[in-house]
């Protein structure tokens, strides 16, 4: 991935303007407003049903925006998909599916390869490099389902890396992930960001949000805060986000009780 020129690096990758998204005319999330620039990483934080996944689907152009606007690299989301990679939660995928780790990563190249044709040497190399970036080269030919939860999550991140995205969207990437996988995921995300990609991740884990992100968007059906993680993630806002599920310890540390 080529380094972005300084002027372009500050350009917005994702612009959310008073966004409201609805499923079957029932609003799922409203009033989301913020900008993500190249190299930035934003944590979407909120309880289950807060609208985090819905917002991610809106940025992918998979659910219609009923109010406001979502702009990805200056274009409507559906027109920017080639520049966007999505990392689903690994345990939502069929563990018995007959693909190897490398084949799963190679899928990230399919939009470039196009119909009919088979992936070429360059695609294969990109997939192998992406697998190396998450520390899984030696497991390339293992069946996806035989890998641990953390390794599967790393394979899916590698697939996203192989897409060479300028915007990366992750849904709960650290859920059920072992410590080693967590370290490797964080390192790979840092490299992507330093290469100029913007990152948006939905997460429950405030500690990991601090490690992986510099910005935060607090959500509970509507936006409670959007800004630098240090100043935005206050105990008051967390209580507003999580209601009585939030617990305060020693003044500033906050634990969120999961339902």
């Amino acid at each position, binding site marked *: 991935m080529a380094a972005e020129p300084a002027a372009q690096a500050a350009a917005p990758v994702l612009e959310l303007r008073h966004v409201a998204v609805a499923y079957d005319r029932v609003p799922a999330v409203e009033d989301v407003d913020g900008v993500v620039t190249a190299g930035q990483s934003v944590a979407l934080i909120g309880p289950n049903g807060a609208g985090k996944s819905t917002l991610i689907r809106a940025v992918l152009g*998979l659910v219609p925006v009923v109010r406001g606007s979502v702009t990805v690299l200056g274009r409507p989301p559906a027109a920017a998909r080639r520049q966007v990679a999505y990392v689903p939660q690994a345990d939502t995928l069929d563990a018995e599916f007959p693909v190897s780790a490398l084949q799963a990563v190679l899928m990230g190249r*399919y939009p470039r390869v196009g119909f*009919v044709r088979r992936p070429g040497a360059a695609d294969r190399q990109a997939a192998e490099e992406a697998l190396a970036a998450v520390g899984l080269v030696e497991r390339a030919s293992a069946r996806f389902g035989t890998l641990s939860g953390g390794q599967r999550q790393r394979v899916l991140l590698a697939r996203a890396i192989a897409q060479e995205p300028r915007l990366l969207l992750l849904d709960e990437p650290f859920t059920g992930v072992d410590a080693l996988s967590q370290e490797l995921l964080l390192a790979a995300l840092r490299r992507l960001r330093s290469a100029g990609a913007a990152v948006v991740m939905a997460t429950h884990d405030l500690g990991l949000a601090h490690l992986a992100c510099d910005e935060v968007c607090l959500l509970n059906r509507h936006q409670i805060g959007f800004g630098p993680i240090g100043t935005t993630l206050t105990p008051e806002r967390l209580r507003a986000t999580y209601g009585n599920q939030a617990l305060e310890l020693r003044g500033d540390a906050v634990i969120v009780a999961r339902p």
Partner: protein
Amino acid sequence: MTDLLIEPFRLPYMQRALLEVLLLGVLAGAVGVFVVLRRLAFVSDALTHTVFPGVVIAHLLDRSLLLGALAFGVLTAVLLTAIGANRRVGADATLAILLTSFFSLGVVLVSRTSTYTADLTVFLFGRVLAVDRADLLQTLALAAVVLGTLWALRKELVLRAFDPDGAAAMGYRTALLDLVLNLLIALVVVAAVKAVGTVLVVALIVVPAAAARLVADRVATTTVLSCLLGALGGWVGLAVSYVVSVDHGVRLAAGATIVVVLVVLFALAAAAAPVRRRLTARAAPR
């Protein structure tokens, strides 16, 4: 063994039947892999019943059975995709409604003919020994269309089966891919109607693929194995039904014998799967 596998096929009608079941075995085996990966066995089952009225209408109007079956196959594929998209109804209820209503329509139509039971049996269970040159060419043409489409869209269909959200996020129109696969299943059913009838096709589609799925752990190897098993089941089933019927005087229906052989192959694969898994586990580095 040669007596069983080669000898019966000296007669021209047996040669045509053999070619037909080999073609169908490969065709259904290939489509079946996607049916099994997507867990669409019930969809195939529904399709086999919904093309039935198409076959009956074509028979009553003295038109090509293929065209009748094709029209209803396409109609079902479209209705499935359209009604199934309504989340209040859901895919399973849609299937049950289409299956029973279309099948009843077929039975009602066929019950108006004077040769009711005989006609019904032919449509439901096929008559592989009556396959002629034109039928063979028709199957060949359908196989070319279906296998060509599968080949062209293999990457995208696998991706959609593995990770539907991921495929949609990459910009693939998953509803369109689903419609294409439903149409391909319908075409296989259409191709197989004359030879094995509408009821037994589902076994041709699902059983070899499910057996291959048990022992292979790549899509490519699963597909090759599924096609081979489908063809093998057709061959052995046809030979067994001939030998038992002619040499031993016990009449065995060819289509049903093929299905029984396929199920035996499935049982063998199910028995072999744990052994294979233990071997690969020992061969793996950790």
